[in-house]
């Protein structure tokens, strides 16, 4: 990395691209879901520790990727930021205020600024509403544009911005392909003129050629509307392509956080290394030359996570101490944070 880049770093989990205004500050976020037993008098017997003490910052204008396997807590983290889940503990600072303390009335204003794009364009659009209604509804609810004609004009504008003809406003979701539906989902998110969009597996359900179209669209919109993305995905190739910084999660914990190119070229945490190794690269010659080190076993239950470092049962470099000591996220290189005592 060049010096110019590192100079602009923020003090804590700093960005390397010169983004220095913190937009969202997540501090020690915990989300435990209770596990209950008993039909009539349910009692809590355990907790699923979906997110267990995660801290990171999102800078204005950047795209922060969150990667990890299913059950690592990446989606729950996104849902907590949206306040779709009430976190068990921790703070989410947005515009200087902790929004976890907000009631639903106060959240209305926040929701205008934070939008979400879901994975499945089939289930996230109401099948009984026309596309035009789907996109204009948030504007109506939030009283952004009260004039119906104005609203329709904006719907057409948003459709065009997302690469769809204005005529799509009169169609129903079932008349459209997966890629077109995802564009509608994006247009709906843009309707509120948000500053921050959480993309939860936003391109994962799409075919290769359509996926590339939607990735390009997301990138264009980011530049055009100065958007900040939290890009949650299990597809590391897509994350490498679109994200400025990348956070790796494992079993509810943040294990590594770094500039995208740095993380992919120089991963430090043993989990990140194995995760990257598992991703096949579309080139048979490169694949022949790669050592395929397979990560052993499966993710342990988040109800009863291993003591010490949660990764130690599968870790190739674990020592005895890893069973006891919980590793803290520390900055080993400028902007490169890792939670492992053996690095």
């Amino acid at each position: 990395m060049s010096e110019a880049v590192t100079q602009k770093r923020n003090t804590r989990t700093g960005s390397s691209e010169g983004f220095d205004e913190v937009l969202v500050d997540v501090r020690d976020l915990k989300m435990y879901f209770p596990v209950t037993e008993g039909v009539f008098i349910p009692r809590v017997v355990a907790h699923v520790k979906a997110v267990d003490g995660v801290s990171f910052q999102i800078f204005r204008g950047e795209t922060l990727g969150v990667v990890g396997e299913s059950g690592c807590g990446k989606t729950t983290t996104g849902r907590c930021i949206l306040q779709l889940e009430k976190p068990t503990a921790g703070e989410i600072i947005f515009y200087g205020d902790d929004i976890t303390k907000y009631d639903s009335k106060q959240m209305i204003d926040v929701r205008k600024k934070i939008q979400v794009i879901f994975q499945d364009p089939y289930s996230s659009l109401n099948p009984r509403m026309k596309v035009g209604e789907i996109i204009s509804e948030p504007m109506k609810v939030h009283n952004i544009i009260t004039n119906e004609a104005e609203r329709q004009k904006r719907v057409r504008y948003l459709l065009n911005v997302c690469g769809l003809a204005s005529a799509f406003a009169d169609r129903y979701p079932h008349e459209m392909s997966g890629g077109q539906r995802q564009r509608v989902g994006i247009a709906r998110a843009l309707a509120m003129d948000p500053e921050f969009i959480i993309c939860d597996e936003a391109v994962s359900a799409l075919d290769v050629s359509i996926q590339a179209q939607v990735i390009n669209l997301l990138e264009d919109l980011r530049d055009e509307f100065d958007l900040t993305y939290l890009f949650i995905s299990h597809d590391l190739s897509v994350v490498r392509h679109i994200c400025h910084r990348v956070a790796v999660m494992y079993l509810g914990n943040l294990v590594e956080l770094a500039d995208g190119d740095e993380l992919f070229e120089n991963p430090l945490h043993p989990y990140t290394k194995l995760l990257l190794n598992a991703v096949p690269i579309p080139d048979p010659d490169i694949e022949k030359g790669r050592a395929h080190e397979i990560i052993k076993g499966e993710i342990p239950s988040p109800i009863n996570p291993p003591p010490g470092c949660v990764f130690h049962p599968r870790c190739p470099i674990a020592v005895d101490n890893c069973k006891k000591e919980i590793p803290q996220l520390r900055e080993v290189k400028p902007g490169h944070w890792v939670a492992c005592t053996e690095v």
Partner: protein
Amino acid sequence: MSASARSDLLDVRDLSLRFKGAKANVVDGVSFSVAAGSTLCIVGESGCGKSVTALSLMGLLPMPPAEFVSGTARFDDRDLLSLSSRDLGDIRGNRMAMIFQEPMTSLNPVLTIGMQLTEPMIAHLGMSEEAAMEKAKKLLGMVGISEPDRRLAQYPHHLSGGMRQRVVIAMALACDPKLIIADEPTTALDVTIQAQILELMKDLTRELGVAMIIITHNLGVVARYADRVNVMYAGRIIESGVASDIYHRPRHPYTLALLKSVPRMDRQREAKLDPVDGQPPDLTKLDEGCSFRPRCRFAKDHCAESFPALEDIGDGHTSACFEKDNLEKEVKEVVG
């Protein structure tokens, strides 16, 4: 190509399929072969006919509404397409087996793993229940499942997704098949589990000499595991060859476009991906011209006149494109 010189295990010729009432064929004149111990990958986007091809070979496509228009599929000196469903039932799950994408829906939720795993052995090989159970334990060990005794008594919902897919693979292996068709075997799984499962399948082809057809849209998986690759578009094979030819010397604009539209983990944050414009075509609205023409950058007037035939361009590499010789400049840009 050496694979075709050896006796092929499965040899599909001119397979065409359609659904009743439809004017167009969903699979149109598809020919390919698989040699013992080799892996063929079929790639293409949703609706290109790759799964329908596999299902029809296994006799798992409901007929009607589906019907064969033409074709033969020689497997073990018999034509799969002309067998009665009873004869096909003897081969299916026995000499050839299938692995599906969704391990939850391809296992019966109300039967134990043990019952499901022993069923094909008892039915096809006439094994006793005890002998089948013994073999089931061995199979579970082979696919990397610990504590086989306990697992055999469990139900599918006790197992994780990766574990279930291992059970499905163990079931596919139960009768020592010669051919396994895997339809998106790892799409529902995490990358680390995907690597475990595919590595396991690779070992099986090597050690047991099983031939494998993997149907996938993941070009990374293809690069890692395929010997040969068929690229399908709108019901046809439009390019076919050994993996390195397909990736380094693509001779069809669609293959090239696919390669240009995948984000790659080994490349830096790039300026732009280069996606294929437009949507895959509606099969009912195809004309006599090349079906990729509306999205193709190289299309000329003559592409509208007829569908280009698959032509051999050497080393078993075939391409169905009139303009295949004009791709080289762009290929250089991609491959470098």
